[in-house]
């Protein structure tokens, strides 16, 4: 019989991050609180002639700094390598041994699972475009597949091809940790890692695992990714001022800023965490998921699905909207998202809407796409821990239509007991996770 939910409490016992603001939790957090921006001219590929010439890159990252056997990950795509670094940090904090066949941590590997919201590896663009160029006859508009194959078969590399598959970051984490519990990977656009952490919470609740390594890993800073988003006119084109380009909830917002990275949390059954004496960082108390079922191109105008997911998460947590202190927004800095998200928050928080504290760290970090929700859930935990909410930077010219408290430009010292993370993906994917200060 398919297992019902047993209401196991699920806590966070480790966190790790590799993102444009740093390669560890504290560096990222200090940069965030200092209002720094991780955005700059794109260097991963030559984007100088693209409509958008900047992005939020992870700089100077070397997976070998995190592992003894970097050879096992050397072919990994950017997302896989980021995931390994973030997972090493998270496991270390949680006391889970990595890179060993004989772990001394006493945890049965069959009871450790993985759930990632992970994206594709970049194509080998020279080969990809080169093969098309070789095969295409522009006069007849016909592809000569023989010529295409001559280039593709020589220039494409087997391991690079394998690493484009979206399940590979999870494969690298099994290799790293020896995890043999339920392993899953999802890709629901910008909502993926919030969904992964939500579903991983459910995996522990129903007893399928004691520990879940959950979060996201993604880099879409590659020519095809940026082409796609530029053509959708989703990206900011503020090329003269990259660091102020991500400006959620302002009147002058003109699109999101592409980022990349990995964010991993260790979720654990409370009983297991206590038994191991693990330090408990926070508790995950609610998860809600819905779909707009509206249009693949647009969010539902009234934020129907977003509202439904928030309400489902609140109901799942067994709280009311009055109990929530902080909303970590999806806040992409696109005209559509910020406006509809504001509507949805108003629908959920009703008379309290203007009191609720809402901020978007995408203003600093950019949009990590599949990895965004994971990074943002980590921020919720840190806000709870330190009693401070990160600001929405670049928030200088409020949009008169958007009238919530977006924590403009200066972090807010305040006690956060319950924080809500919401993520919305292309196609109408809505996922919400609620994090609470841990109390015995």
């Amino acid at each position, binding site marked *: 019989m*398919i297992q019902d939910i047993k209401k196991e409490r699920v806590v966070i016992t480790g966190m790790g991050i590799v993102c444009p603001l740093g390669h560890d939790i504290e560096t990222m957090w200090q940069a965030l609180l200092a209002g720094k921006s991780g955005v700059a001219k794109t260097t991963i590929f030559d984007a100088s002639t693209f409509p958008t010439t900047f992005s939020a890159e992870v700089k100077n990252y070397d997976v070998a700094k995190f592992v003894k056997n970097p050879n096992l990950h050397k072919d990994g795509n950017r997302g896989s390598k980021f995931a390994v670094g973030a997972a090493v940090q998270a496991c270390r904090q949680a006391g889970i041994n990595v890179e060993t066949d004989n772990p001394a941590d006493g945890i049965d590997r069959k009871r450790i*699972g993985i759930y990632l919201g992970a994206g594709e590896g970049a194509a080998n663009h020279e080969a990809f475009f080169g*093969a*098309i160029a070789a095969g295409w006859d522009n006069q007849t508009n016909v592809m000569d597949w023989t010529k295409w194959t001559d280039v593709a078969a020589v220039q494409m590399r*087997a391991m690079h091809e*394998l690493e484009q598959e979206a399940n590979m970051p999870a494969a690298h984490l099994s290799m790293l940790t020896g995890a043999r519990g*339920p392993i899953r990977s999802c*890709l629901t656009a910008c909502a993926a890692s919030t969904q992964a952490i939500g579903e991983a919470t459910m995996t522990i609740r129903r007893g399928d695992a004691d520990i879940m390594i959950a979060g996201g890993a993604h880099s879409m800073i590659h020519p095809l990714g940026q*082409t796609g988003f530029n053509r959708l006119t989703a990206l900011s084109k503020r090329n003269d001022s990259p660091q102020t380009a991500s400006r959620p909830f302002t009147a002058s917002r003109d699109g999101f800023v592409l980022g990349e990275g990995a964010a991993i949390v260790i979720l654990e059954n409370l009983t297991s965490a206590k038994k191991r004496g693990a330090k408990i960082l926070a508790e995950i108390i609610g998860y809600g998921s819905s*779909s707009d079922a509206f249009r693949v191109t647009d969010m539902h105008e009234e934020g129907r699905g977003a509202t439904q997911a928030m309400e489902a998460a609140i109901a799942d947590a067994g709280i009311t909207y009055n109990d929530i202190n902080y909303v970590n927004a999806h806040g992409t800095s696109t005209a559509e998202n910020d406006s509809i998200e504001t509507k949805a928050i108003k629908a959920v928080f009703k008379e309290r809407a203007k009191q609720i504290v809402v901020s978007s760290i995408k203003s600093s970090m950019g949009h990590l796409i599949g990895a965004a929700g994971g990074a943002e859930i980590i921020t919720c935990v840190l806000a709870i821990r330190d009693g401070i909410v990160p600001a929405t930077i670049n928030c200088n010219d409020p949009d008169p239509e958007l009238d919530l408290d977006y924590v403009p430009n200066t972090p807010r010292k305040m006690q956060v007991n319950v924080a809500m993370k919401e993520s919305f993906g292309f196609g109408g994917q809505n996922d919400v996770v609620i994090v609470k200060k841990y109390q015995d």
Partner: protein
Amino acid sequence: MGRTRVVITGIGAVSPLGLTSARTWEGLCAGKSGIKRITKFDPAKFSCQLAGEVEEYKIQQYVPKSFRKATKMMSKDIELAVIAADEAVRDSGLITKAIDEQKINVNPQRMAINLGAGLISCDPCELAPAVAKSIANGKFDIQKWGKEGLDLVTPLWLLKYLPNMLACHVGIIHDIQGPSNTITCAEVSGHIAIAEAAETIARGDSDIALAGGAESKVNPVLIMRQCLIKRTTSKHNDDADGACRPFDSDASGSIFGDGGGIVVLENLDNATKRGAKIYAELVGTAQSACINPVYEHIEADGYGLTIAIEKALAQANISPKDIDLIIPHGTGILQDDLAEAKGIEAAIGEETKRIPVWPTKSMLSNTGAACGGLDVVAAVLAMRDGIIPAAKNCVKKAVGCNLNIVTTTQKTNIRCALCCGYTYGGQTAAVILKKFEN
């Protein structure tokens, strides 16, 4: 919370053997292979020139009139999901917005969708005019692409290729407003999507869920990828029918193809209340991973599969003695077939000699994220008809494989069926179906 039973009340399939589950099942029973020489592009210089292609269809026939315009934004992967979902919903007797807007008998907020999808690879021809515009000194030039080429890419191009668009299009067509997820665990995505959809019902987040997967592997980039990773066979370009040989001593690689397999999962109370026909009960699901530094193959003892099968058996509260059919992943890659055989054998022990094992990929081809959905549909139909068709192309069982591969069609009562899968990268899954008893 009460004990929730999850049953299958609708099935849909599109495969190289036909555009419906009925046609697919007919082909399987007749031992037909859907594998042929590739027609979608000229494969002359590919080491593997074969694939399982789906016959022609008109996608407009599978969507409501109001949605016809949106079919322009569908890649083949999305179309295959839409076709399989259309059949599954109609078969279940549920009336969604797409079936008849006046007679809807479902609550959209209580419906979930969970599909396995591949990383959709774009059509090189679609980008070719933009690439042609970006040539400088005879070579592709990224600066020219950014300046001129990019503008020739159709504005909604990216939305055709995001994996979650399968579930989004199907969700919009049928107005599915509950939880929606897209599992991207390559060849085991469909199995996992079915498991997670069932969990959504079990935990009370939905009453009904569409689950399974779809993928179009017949794309020059994806076929080239599999050729380069050496997972395809290059020995049978003149012998399509005998090309994919799961568990056979002459197995030399897999053959890839297009397909979609989607089932309607439903809370038993809901199904009973509306008098739905019930195909089978979903009683056990589990996942694990094989761990192998050679990521493209699973570990030699298939241990990750053993774990998944043992856990699924425990969840189903049955023993191997209760299983009368196993549909394995059986890719026709000898090394992986042997590892899978060992992994299954370790889980079912002395029942290995008895339990009929029926691989389907020699006929359906390896349809990636669609495999799990297609195999579950096949298992459901085998259970309904009490027939296990003969395995195709397993003429001389590979040494080291102790499984009871069925070589002749068997008429038998199937109490429980196990579908299992794995993928490059290592993820594994097992799904157990049980004949429905009230």
